[in-house]
């Protein structure tokens, strides 16, 4: 399994999208590329599993290393572990669904698809890179297209949102870059290679400075309170596929970075900072949930609920047990699939009713049974119904958090459990108001989903069910990787 393929396919697709002649060809080329990538992601998953079954216990599999800037010890180093594989699968699912729901984009189709594919390229590269500079390089590739996607194809206050999002994410990346540079210069032997850094000893003083930089930097991406305000505005202004990518992929870049870079490499400082992380994530969980309760626009509801759900991602990291970190990864996968589906459904509804205000909806189950059923599924997933992905992920986070016996962690866990009720309140309010109740006369003539929308929704539901009904495969996939991080956290800090 050559990991370069994962980067090459989106690259080739993006170039082809620019070369072909009309919008129809653009769509099919993108779909073909996304399908190939999905197949490749599955091949990677099974190849990875096979390697693990065969007893290959290396930290990172399928490694590739090319010189990039030899004089600075920067190399183009790729490799995957369980977390990366899970994230790549998630990305592949979201990308193909995003390509499918954008089938009707008429405005500058070619550029739109080019940017989508470019964004996915950044995400794939990010998840496979093992050198911090390469990782940062791909992170930036994943940020820039979002600005254009929102600014050009968005709706509402799109310029404001695009600026806000781009500036906040750029601010986050700057913090990340500073953190990476600080690590690079303070690591023995000047290296930015993740595996080298993991083995080398970085002094606690340096870690103390680097960790907040990296954690907050990545945290901006994953809606760390109080750096979350780009989320509601960005999502609500973005085009449907843009919101899907933003919530399904971009927010995961942050979670992955917090786990892989901040926590794994700076494990001594991570332990010292666990209390503020837990406090911030619990605030995000509850505060996001309560703020969602007051929203009236479907996209805002989902965006604010994302803040709450991503709080679980950070809570799992902050609790720093193996189970909680596995829960973090599961929550990232689950939230990615679920929120992508939610935005897709909202997009479908908006396209037909021309409104996103919950109060103006009613009885859509009658005219759009498919879309409404999807809305139910995604709503139930969001409020953590067993059998759908949210439950397994949240329970793993809770069980992992509960392993810490101190009162502080206990209280934090219980408080975050309470968000389950609040989630039920706002999800049910939105879903029942939209799909149930008497049908509004102006919606009587609306049509149900088209083939591309159905296919997109089914692909995402398949993912949600795969995680929800049989979470053990994901658990088995991720566990060795989180065990590795846990082992790093268990190391004693050097005495000097």
């Amino acid at each position, binding site marked *: 399994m050559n990991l370069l393929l994962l980067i090459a396919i989106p690259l080739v697709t993006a170039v082809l999208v620019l070369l072909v002649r009309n919008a129809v060809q653009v769509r099919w080329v993108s779909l073909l590329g996304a399908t190939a990538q999905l197949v490749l992601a599955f091949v990677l998953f099974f190849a990875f599993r096979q390697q693990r079954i065969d007893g290959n216990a290396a930290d990172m599999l399928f490694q590739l290393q090319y010189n990039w800037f030899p004089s600075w010890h920067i190399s183009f180093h790729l490799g995957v572990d369980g977390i990366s594989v899970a994230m790549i699968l998630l990305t592949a699912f979201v990308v193909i669904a995003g390509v499918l729901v954008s089938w009707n984009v008429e405005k500058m189709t070619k550029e739109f698809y080019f940017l989508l594919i470019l964004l996915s390229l950044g995400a794939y590269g990010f998840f496979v890179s093992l050198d911090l500079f390469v990782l940062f390089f791909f992170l930036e590739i994943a940020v820039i297209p979002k600005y254009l996607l929102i600014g050009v194809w968005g709706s509402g206050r799109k310029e404001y949102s695009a600026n806000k999002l781009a500036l906040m994410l750029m601010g986050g990346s700057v913090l990340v870059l500073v953190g990476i540079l600080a690590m690079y210069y303070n690591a023995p032997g000047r290296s930015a290679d993740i595996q080298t850094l993991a083995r080398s000893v970085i002094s606690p003083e340096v870690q103390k400075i680097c960790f907040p930089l990296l954690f907050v930097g990545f945290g901006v991406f994953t809606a760390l309170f109080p750096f979350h305000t780009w989320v509601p505005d960005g999502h609500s202004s973005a085009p449907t596929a843009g919101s899907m990518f933003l919530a399904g992929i971009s927010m995961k870049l942050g979670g992955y970075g917090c786990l892989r870079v901040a926590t794994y490499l700076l494990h001594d400082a991570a332990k010292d900072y666990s209390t503020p992380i837990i406090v911030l994530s619990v605030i995000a969980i509850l505060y996001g949930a309560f703020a969602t309760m007051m929203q009236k626009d479907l996209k805002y509801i989902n965006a604010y609920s994302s803040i709450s759900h991503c709080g679980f991602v950070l809570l799992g990291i902050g609790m720093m047990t193996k189970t909680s970190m596995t829960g973090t990864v599961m929550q990232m996968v689950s939230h990615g699939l679920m929120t992508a589906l939610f935005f897709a459904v909202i997009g479908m509804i908006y396209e037909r009713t021309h409104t996103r205000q919950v109060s103006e909806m009613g009885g859509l189950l009658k005219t759009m049974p498919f879309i409404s059923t999807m809305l139910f599924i995604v709503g139930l997933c969001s409020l953590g119904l067993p059998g759908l992905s949210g439950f397994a992920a949240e329970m793993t986070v809770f069980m992992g958090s509960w392993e810490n016996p101190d009162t502080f962690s206990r209280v934090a866990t219980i408080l975050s459990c309470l968000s389950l009720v609040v989630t039920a309140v706002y999800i049910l309010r939105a879903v029942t108001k939209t799909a149930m109740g008497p049908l509004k006369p102006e919606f009587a003539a609306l049509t149900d989903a088209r083939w591309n929308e159905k296919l997109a929704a089914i692909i995402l539901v398949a993912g949600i069910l795969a995680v929800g009904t*049989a979470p053990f495969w994901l658990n088995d996939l991720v566990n060795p990787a989180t065990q590795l991080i846990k082992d790093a956290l268990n190391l004693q800090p050097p005495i000097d």
Partner: protein
Amino acid sequence: MLNATYISLIPLLPLAGFVLLGLFGRKYFKNTSGIIGTGLMLVSAVLALYTAYGYFFEYGKADGVYQKLVPLKYTWLEFGKGLSIDMGIVLDPISVMMLVVVTFISLMVHIYSLGYLKGEERFPTYYAYLGLFTFSMLGLVMSSNIFQIYIFWELVGVSSFLLIGYYYDKPSAVAACKKAFIVTRFADVGFLIGILILSFYSGTLDFNTLIAALTSPESSEYKTAVTASFLGISALSWGLILVFVGGAGKSAMFPLHIWLPDAMEGPTPVSALIHAATMVVAGVFLVARLFPVFAISSPGALSVVAYVGAISAFIAAIIACTQTDIKRVLAYSTMSQIGYMMFALGVSGYGGENGLGYTASMFHLFTHAMFKALLFLGAGAVIHFIHSNEMKDMGGLRKYLPITHITFLIACLAIAGVPPFAGFFSKEEILLAAYHHNQAIYWMALITSALTAFYMFRLYFSIFWNKEQQPHGEHHGEGGFAMMMPLVLLAIGAAAAGFIPFGHYVSSDGKTLETAFHLSFSIAPVALGLAGIFLAMWMYKSQTDKPEKIAASLGGLYKAAYHKFYIDELYLFITHKIIFNLIGRPAAWFDKVVVDGLVNLAGNTTTKIAETIKGFQSGKVQQYALYFLVGVIGLAVLFIYVWK
């Protein structure tokens, strides 16, 4: 032999029905979906009976004690060593008993719905939901793992939500399904935290290991769980009480009962299945499942169960006397009867003669499932005939609905505890257990039993006697064979189930429990029950103004009971006024104004500063030169005088 393959088919067949009808029902099985669902349910019920026979009479017993068999178990999600969610099947007396009850009542409801919902547009969806519910309920009762029970707990919750909201274009149904879900969800959080506590102290999620670890006083798990305490109550008691909160939510115990009367917005067969016979007793089942831990390790938590049960039974009975919607009367009666089961568990001890309450509770669960399902299905037949839920629209129906009339009467006699109907035996045992253990609860239960007889016969006389029904042309008689057959079968159950020697099969420790029958003890409850019946007859047999007069003389008490003691209003106040206004709105405001404001402030400040300093770039060459000169002079001064 008790083979895991066919036992696992019992829940999986309804699930198959759900998947099949849910995906393809609307297209391919528009008319046949009812038959498909019922057929699958029939196979499942037969398998359940076969399993029960095998368990109770052939393989279940070893050395005179019913064993806990675990024919199937696989790991679903592993958290750490010993700590995993397993999907498994456990067979013990209560789970096998529940297996029979659930499949039997579900089958009856499946058959009944064939007639009741004939011609509905969303027929396939209805049967799909029924299949989902039956699957979840069966999964719940067979759970081998406390997290598995939680999973199916949530799934029955969602099926209940879907079925209450079946008439989705009716705003009251939508509100009711939402309310049911959210209230039970609130309770489930307690359950979840309870699970977390218990799992932490026992180090396992598996029921068998958990019970073993937390009931033997020598084990280290037990010692830490009992010594660790919070607010003066041991961690173990906290865990159990929180688990019981979950059970109380699902079983509509006071004060979490507010969703149950509203849940009557669902189709009546659904109320019979979910909100009378099966799902609402899940809370009782949960306490029974963890009973050894409650009884041996935490008598405090058990007495909480007892008092909550007794209070619920009493309050619900009072409210039931004043309601006019027949389904709501039945809903409160359900709540009251479940209260009976709860406090029966609460007053029970573990093992031998002390375990009478446990047996009685399970016995009452069993008989209650029969007669309450019958009552609901009978009420369904009445509603089907009258097209109204209100008592004032009814009366004199005994002529038009003879079979419904007889079966309804049997059910009323059973619930009122008149010998020799089923309810008499189970209620007798409960009262006996309460009498020996806790006098206060015994007296409350006794009054409740009189009230029960009164409101049930108030219902009976108002529907079938009272004023004469004006014949109008469109009467289509009773609902046909599909609707009558379940009524008759259930009536047989309600009449005869009391003669089952229940103690031989179900007891707290698995050993045979001989339940003695004390004639002298039965006099008081039976006499009170008959008094209630005669009072109802006096007031409601014919149309008079007696009920109004009595209601007027009771004044405030009647009004409070009629308005369900204003508990709904209290909840509304807490949720809307306090949570929405004091937490939700400030949070949204804080986000919009403070957090977002800070971000915008940062942006605006940057712009302002840029605006201010851009004037330097005036485009006037001579100004630039002047800056240059000033700079040079400044530097010169610095170099010459400061940094010499």
